[in-house]
């Protein structure tokens, strides 16, 4: 095992650790802190896979935008509304999912490849192949913004 593999295992450990603490923490401050750290490690994982552009996009969009939006949005909610309820008895379902999927992953996947893709023509590739999809997403984003503003401003929207 060389240094490159070791970095992957360290990042994976951090990812699992932060994801588990994000969903299990009771205090909202801890919850936002662990989510921030989780997203930071995801950006590190992108850079590990040579996708520097996506790593920086993750840092700007998620760590800079989404976490701040979540923090502000949650601080606007009434404090008594933020109690987290538990339904522990249903936890068997994800364990079963993990067991079945792990069985399939162990016995039906092969280790292969070892290439590193070049991202030099990523922008050209994206706009040549997915330009219509990007336009649709842009329209969706704008309409989402308008509808969310309408939803928040109108008292009896829901």
């Amino acid at each position, binding site marked *: 095992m060389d240094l490159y593999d070791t970095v992957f295992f360290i990042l994976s450990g951090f990812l699992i650790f932060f994801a588990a603490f994000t969903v299990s923490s009771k205090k909202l401050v801890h919850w936002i802190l662990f989510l921030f750290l989780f997203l930071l490690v995801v950006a590190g994982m992108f850079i590990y896979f040579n996708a520097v552009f996506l790593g920086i996009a993750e840092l700007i*969009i998620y760590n800079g935008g989404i976490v701040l939006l979540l923090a502000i949005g949650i601080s606007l909610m009434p404090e008594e509304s*933020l*109690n987290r309820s538990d339904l522990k008895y249903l936890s068997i379902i994800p364990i079963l999912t993990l067991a079945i999927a792990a069985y399939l992953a162990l016995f039906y996947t092969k280790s292969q490849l*070892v290439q590193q893709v070049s991202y030099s023509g990523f922008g050209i590739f*994206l706009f040549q192949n997915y330009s219509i999809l990007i336009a649709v*997403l842009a329209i969706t984003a704008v309409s989402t913004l308008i509808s969310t503003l309408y939803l928040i401003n109108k008292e009896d929207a829901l």
Partner: protein
Amino acid sequence: MIPYYYVIWLSLILFSIALYAIITHRDGITFLVSAEIILNASLINFVSASSYFDSLKGSSYALLVLVIAVIETVVVIGMLLVLSKKTGSVSFSNLRRTKG
């Protein structure tokens, strides 16, 4: 370089953690966080597949999923804000009190 199925394992574990949280909690915040974790697990999968199979398609999909995740977060935060003001709770059990 690490075998590809290690990355699938990592995504799988993250997905299971988020699925556990979605199933065992009924509040909207846990749902939102779990959705973020699932989306990020899928992003890791896309980017790693792009790297391993020497194709830019995976990274393109990852970028599109990133945009969709942002849209989803904005909508859910807006809904939770209205729900908490209206019912005093962010639990999805209170959604039955709404008009729709």
